[in-house]
C-alpha cells in the first residue's frame, strides 16, 4: 500500500472585537482561500471549494497561486467538503494533485466560532487503487495535518477543532476599538457597501495594467538576468541594470523580508481609494521591505491599528484587498508581522508610535 501525502493550510484572521471574531476589511473569501492554499503548498490542480465563493474566478486563483487550477464548487456545508475529500483522495491515489478548501468569511461571528479558510492538499501518491474512505493510516502529511487527523478520525471537523485550540487562544482584541465595537462594525459596513463605487482620486490604475501587474503584485515575481545576474522587480521586460531584453527568467522572490524603511500615513492625506481603511483604522502603515539583496517592495502594513512595523523587523507578506474601484476589488500583497517577535506571525505586534 502506498501513502497519500497531505498538507494542511489554515488561514484565519486574528482579531476579535467585543468578543466576536472579526474578518477585517481587507480580507475576503479570495484572500483567505489563497493564504490557506499557499500554506498547504497548492499551486495547481483541482480545488474542491466549499463555502461562499463570491466572485473569485478560476483565472484569479490561478494567477495568485502560479499554476492552472480548476475550481469545483461544492456549495456550503461540511458534508460537501467531506465528499470532496473522498473524491480528492481518489484523485491523489491516481497521481493527480488535488486540494479541498473550506472558506467561511462573514465579517463577524457572534458565536466566536472560527472564521477563515482551511485547505488540505493531497498528492504525490503512488498508485494503490482508489480508496473510498479516509483511513488515517494513509495520512503522512505535515505534523499539523497528521495531528489533526489523529485527533479525530474526520479531517475537517477535527481540523476546525484544532484551529480553535491553536489559533483561538491567540486571537487578540482589536485594541483601538474593542471597547466600543459597534461604531467600528458600522464603519466597516458602510465602507464595504460603498468602497467599490469610490471615484478614484489618487491611486487609479486602469484594469488592464492592474491585470498585467498581477504576477509582481500577487506573487512577487521578478526577472533574473542571465547576462548580469541582477534581479529586476517588478518585471519591466528588460534588465534594470544592463538593459538586456532577452535571457530574462521569471523568479519568485521570497515572501518574507526585512523592513528597511517605515512610515505611518495619518488619515486625511491618503489617496481617496484608501479613505475607507484610513477612516476605519485611523491611518495605516507603509513599509519598504527588502525581499532579497537590493530587491525591495513598497507594502501597506496589514492589521494596521496596532502594527507599526519598525525598521529591522522581519515581516511576511499576505495577499489582501487593496481597495475597490470600478465595481470590483483590487488585491495585492501587504506586510504582516513582525515575525521576529515570536515563532509565528500571530504574535502580538509592537505598540504603535505616535
Amino acid at each position, binding site marked *: 500500500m502506498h501513502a497519500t501525502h497531505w498538507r494542511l493550510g489554515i488561514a484565519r484572521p486574528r482579531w476579535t472585537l467585543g468578543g466576536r471574531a472579526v474578518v477585517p476589511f481587507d480580507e475576503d473569501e479570495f484572500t483567505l482561500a489563497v493564504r490557506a492554499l499557499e500554506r498547504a503548498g497548492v499551486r495547481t490542480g483541482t480545488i474542491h471549494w466549499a463555502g461562499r465563493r463570491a466572485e473569485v474566478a478560476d483565472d484569479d486563483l490561478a494567477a495568485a497561486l502560479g499554476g492552472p487550477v480548476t475550481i469545483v464548487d461544492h456549495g456550503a456545508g461540511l458534508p460537501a467538503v467531506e465528499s470532496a475529500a473522498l473524491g480528492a483522495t481518489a484523485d491523489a491515489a491516481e497521481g493527480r494533485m488535488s486540494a479541498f478548501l473550506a472558506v467561511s468569511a462573514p465579517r463577524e461571528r457572534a458565536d466566536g466560532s472560527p472564521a477563515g479558510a482551511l485547505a488540505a492538499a493531497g498528492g504525490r501518491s503512488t498508485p494503490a487503487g482508489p480508496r473510498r474512505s479516509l483511513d488515517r493510516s494513509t495520512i503522512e502529511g505535515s505534523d499539523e495535518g497528521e495531528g489533526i487527523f489523529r485527533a479525530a478520525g474526520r479531517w475537517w471537523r477535527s481540523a476546525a477543532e484544532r484551529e480553535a485550540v491553536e489559533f483561538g487562544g491567540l486571537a487578540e482584541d482589536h485594541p483601538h476599538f474593542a471597547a466600543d465595537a459597534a461604531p467600528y462594525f458600522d464603519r466597516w459596513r458602510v465602507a464595504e457597501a460603498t468602497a467599490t463605487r469610490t471615484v478614484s*482620486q*489618487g*491611486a487609479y490604475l486602469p484594469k488592464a495594467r492592474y491585470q498585467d501587474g498581477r504576477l509582481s503584485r500577487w506573487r512577487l515575481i521578478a526577472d533574473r538576468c542571465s547576462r548580469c545576474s541582477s534581479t529586476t522587480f517588478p518585471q519591466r521586460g528588460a534588465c534594470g541594470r544592463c538593459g538586456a531584453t532577452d535571457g530574462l527568467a521569471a523568479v519568485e522572490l521570497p515572501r518574507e523580508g526585512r523592513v528597511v*524603511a517605515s*512610515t505611518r500615513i495619518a488619515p486625511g492625506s491618503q489617496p481617496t481609494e484608501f479613505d475607507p481603511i484610513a477612516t476605519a483604522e485611523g491611518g495605516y502603515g507603509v513599509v*519598504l521591505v527588502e525581499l532579497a539583496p537590493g530587491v525591495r517592495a513598497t507594502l501597506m502594513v496589514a492589521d494596521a491599528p496596532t502594527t507599526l512595523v519598525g525598521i529591522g523587523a522581519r515581516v511576511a507578506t499576505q495577499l489582501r484587498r487593496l481597495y475597490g474601484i470600478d465595481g470590483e476589488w483590487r488585491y495585492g500583497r501587504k506586510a504582516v508581522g513582525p515575525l521576529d517577535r515570536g515563532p509565528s506571525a500571530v504574535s502580538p505586534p509592537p505598540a504603535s508610535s505616535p
Partner: protein
Amino acid sequence: MEGAAIVGAGHTRFGVRPEGPRALAQEAIRRALASVDRGVDGRTIDEGFLATLGFGGWQLGNASTVVAEAVGATGLPVTRIENACASGGFAIRAAIRAVQSGAELVVVVGVEKMTDVDQARRRYWLGVSGDTEWERLSGLTFAGVYALLASRYIADRPDAREAMRRVAVKNHANGALNPNAHFQKAVSASDVDRAPRVAAPLGLFDCCPVTDGAAAVLVTRASNARRYTDTPIYVSGVGAATDRLAVQERDEFPHFAASRRAAAEAFRSAPFGPRAVQLAELHDCFTIAELLALEDVGLVGPNEAVAATNAGRTERSGDIPVNPDGGLKAKGHPIGATGVSQVYEVFVQLRGAAGARQIPGAERALAHNVGGAGATATVTIFERG
C-alpha cells in the same frame, strides 16, 4: 560653448492668492521685464518656456499660450516643461540650451495654482508625480515617500531628528524676512515637535505647504548680457538627471542619485567646486530633503549634513547659507514655480538686492531642484560677473 546669463527676474507673492494661474504668470513676467536695469521690450523675446504641473488640470493642453499672451507677443514659440516639482529647473536648463543654440532673449515662467482645488482632487494632484503601480497602490502619499526616506536616514544617524527640526526652524526664520514668502512667521523647536504627524516621522512643520505663485526669469547669451544690465548673473554650469520613478527600485537609497549626477554635471563646467559655493537654494519640500541635498550636491561630504546643520553652518550667518528665502518649507512650493523661484533668489542675492535676508558678499550660488522624490533633478550654478 556660448555661456548664458540671467538679466532679469520677477516673483509674485507666494501664498493663497485670489488670482488664477494666468494672472500669476503675467504678474511674474511683468515684474521680470521691469527688473531689467536698461529696460527691455517684451516683444524682443524670441523663445519662452512655461514650467507647470497643471495642478488641478486647469489647462493641461496648450498652457504655453498664456505666456505669449502675457508677454504681449502673440506668435512667440513657447514650450511647456513638466517634470513635476523640478519643472522649473528643467525649464531654466532648456532656456540656457536655447540661448546656446542662438536664441537672443528667453523668458522662463513657472506657475502653479494649488489652493483652489478641492481636498480630494488636491490629494490626487499631490500624488501624480510618484510611482502609481507600486507606491500609490501601497497607500503612500507624497509625504509618505519622503517619510520612508526619513525613517531610513534617521535610523542610520541618531542626530538627524535634531537636524530636521533645525531645518524647519531655520527656514521659517528666513521666510519671516522674505516679503514674498507664504509663511512669514518664525516657529520654535517645540512648535515643530508638537505638530501633528502627517506621515511619521514627518510632522506638519517638516512639510512644505500648498501654495499659489509664479516666478519668471530672463535668460540671454553671456556675450549679450551687458546690453541689459551692468550686473548680469552668469550661469557657470547646469546639470540634470533622472532616476527610477519608484524609490523601491533605486540603487541608492535614501539618497538621490539624480541630484548627485546633476551636480556632477553642473560642476564639470564651473570654474569652482561645491565648497566654494556661498549660497545654496536646496529643494526642501520636506526637512529631510534639505539634509539629503546637502550631501547629494556636495556642499558637505557624505554623512556630514546632520553635523553641519546642527552646527548652524546652513543658517544665514553660517558658512553655507541654505534657503535664505525660506525655502519650499516657508516660502511655499507652487510646484512649477519653485525651480524658477530659486533662480530669482539667486539673482537678487548675488546682485545684493535681497533686502533683510541678504547674504553679504555672496558671489557664487547653487540652485537645486528635485521632481517628486528624486526621480528628476537639476542643479544650476551661478556667479556674479
